């Protein structure tokens, strides 16, 4: 299990690092094997920072991230990290900048071999690569021996997923992996993630697109300005959003068949019908606590002031 326990990230800002900027505050959630957790937020919400901390690209300021019980920030030395990256890998937004343009794209595979499987024979390695490419539905003849500029974004992104498969990882951080792809090929990469999940992989799916998050995820975490405002089972969060920010987000997403005004009217009507006071409603002047409150089983929301505008 990839577990985030009250994780906080503070960046030093300003000319001499005199200022501080809290990118993530007290975030707690977990990614279980065979589960997709989508992390939804706008730019600056801290969603990418959380992914980077899990990959150790950014350090954790407070709290801890554990992977199967091991605190990731205590890992020291080449060996320990190598073992960690055997379990956890990341794929990012821009497939073109993930590759070195001077080398052929399949170098990402041979680098894995040198680092992790030097004992595997050439022919067996080729079989493994072919197998991994088959899983991500790529034709080896079309992608091997080519330079990154000769391949499409979708092909490059799938090769990075194949690379993750070769390592046989347990957890994947997928940060906006399909936002640069064309609409007609997007869904294939998304389906691929769903297949990996079926094979038991735990996936942290970072996105700003609610529809995509809803399509493949089991759990949804909504981030706003570095704090988790709502999280829980995807169906519950989507069918019954409680936090004003989540509602605003839902009302802004362009949908087919429904115009913005209709969606907003529905949400308003629901809100007007619900006059009872809930434990997550704060009194005037009360401060927002960092602990989330349970709405129903598996659905949590950050307490808020009833008439608060976002």
């Amino acid at each position, binding site marked *: 299990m990839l577990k985030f326990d009250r994780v906080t990230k503070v960046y030093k800002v300003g000319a001499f690092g005199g200022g501080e900027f809290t990118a993530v505050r007290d975030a707690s959630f977990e990614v279980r094997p065979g589960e997709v957790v989508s992390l939804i937020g*706008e*730019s600056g919400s801290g969603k990418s920072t959380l992914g980077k901390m899990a990959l150790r690209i950014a350090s954790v300021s407070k709290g801890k991230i554990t992977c199967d019980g091991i605190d990731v920030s205590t890992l020291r030395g080449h060996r320990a990290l190598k073992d960690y990256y055997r379990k956890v890998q990341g794929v990012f937004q821009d497939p073109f900048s993930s590759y070195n343009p001077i080398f052929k794209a399949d170098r990402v595979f041979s680098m894995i071999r040198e680092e992790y499987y030097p004992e595997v024979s050439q022919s067996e390695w080729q079989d493994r690569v072919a197998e991994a490419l088959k899983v991500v539905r790529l034709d080896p003849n079309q992608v091997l021996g080519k330079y990154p500029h000769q391949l*499409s974004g979708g092909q490059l992104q799938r090769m990075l997923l194949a690379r993750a498969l070769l390592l046989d990882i347990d957890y994947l951080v997928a940060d906006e992996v399909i936002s640069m792809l*064309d*609409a*007609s*090929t*997007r*869904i*294939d990469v*998304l*389906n691929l993630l*769903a297949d990996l999940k079926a094979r038991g992989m735990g996936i942290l799916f970072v996105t*700003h*697109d*609610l*529809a*995509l998050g*809803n*399509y*493949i995820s089991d759990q949804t975490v909504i981030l706003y300005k570095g704090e988790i405002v709502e999280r829980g089972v*995807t*169906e519950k969060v*989507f069918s019954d959003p409680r936090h004003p920010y989540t509602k*605003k*987000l*839902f009302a*802004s*997403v*362009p*949908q*087919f*068949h429904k*115009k*913005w005004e209709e969606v907003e009217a529905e949400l308003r009507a629901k809100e007007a019908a619900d006059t009872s006071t809930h434990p997550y409603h704060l009194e005037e002047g009360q401060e927002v606590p960092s602990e989330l409150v349970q709405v129903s089983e598996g659905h949590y929301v950050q307490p808020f002031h009833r008439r608060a505008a976002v």
Partner: protein
Amino acid sequence: MTLEVSDLRVYYRTLRGDVRALDGPTFTVADGEIMGLAGESGSGKSTLSKSLIRLDGRMRYIGGSVTLDGDEMPIWDDRAMDEFRYKRVSIIPQYAMSAMNPTRKIGKMIAELLESRGVRFRDVRDELHRRLELVELERDVLDRYPLELSGGMKQRTVMVISTLLNPSLLIADEVTSALDVSTQRAVAETLVEFRDREFVKSMIVVTHDISLVYQIADTIMVMYGGRLAEKASAKTIIEMPKHPYTKMLLDSLPEVGVKYEDKRLSGIPGSPPGLLNPPQGCRFRDRCPLADKQCLEQPPFVEVESDHHVACWKAE
């Protein structure tokens, strides 16, 4: 009719030959119409919108005509287009975030822009202030540098600048794709308001996001491989599309509420055709499940029902 485009062909010059990026679309945009122009990368949608403003060095005008309010636009002649550009046809560029001169205060930049078009800044200053207010910007943005504004503020400023002289046609090129969902909605709704207040007469909203354009557009035109695939009212395109490409594209988009376990969506196999030597006949032929011998011949873009144009032999 605000805009009439007839058999417009614009190719890109390369060492290996011409890339036929825009191959003969014929369509019209009515007065007051907001037309969404949808397509994937390589569909020719950006080439079309650029052609209506300015051909860059690599683009070559091959043939066809463009008429704005009854006057033919000399799009092949960069100089002669000055008569139209900004005053009668204007664009909100794709990267509005970086569209402004970083070394000038915004007010000074606008003044210079207007002077270069032969308009006195004094004459439009009040209107400029009114419009900034309308998009909820303080007047003092004019005394600031672009650097000092947030992405959304820059976007709104560029929208005001682009439409200041009340052009007949406004082209909005992927204006919302770099924005967050809530800002996206505000910007999209501002476009509609600009039309309703008659700052612009008609609009072409270029986007790859059909669900966004459905929210604001009257009609949607779908392009594929440099040609038109389908044009109809926004509702018709979403609910009763006729072209196989439109159908498959819509089927591949996940909607809020659709789950992978319940309904597995699928993409369109294959990739768009190269336009250096485009295949003969219908350009969607290779990826189309309905394609047969007839599709070796290019299907015409015809009106199959009232205000519903399709280029497909198989559209019933």
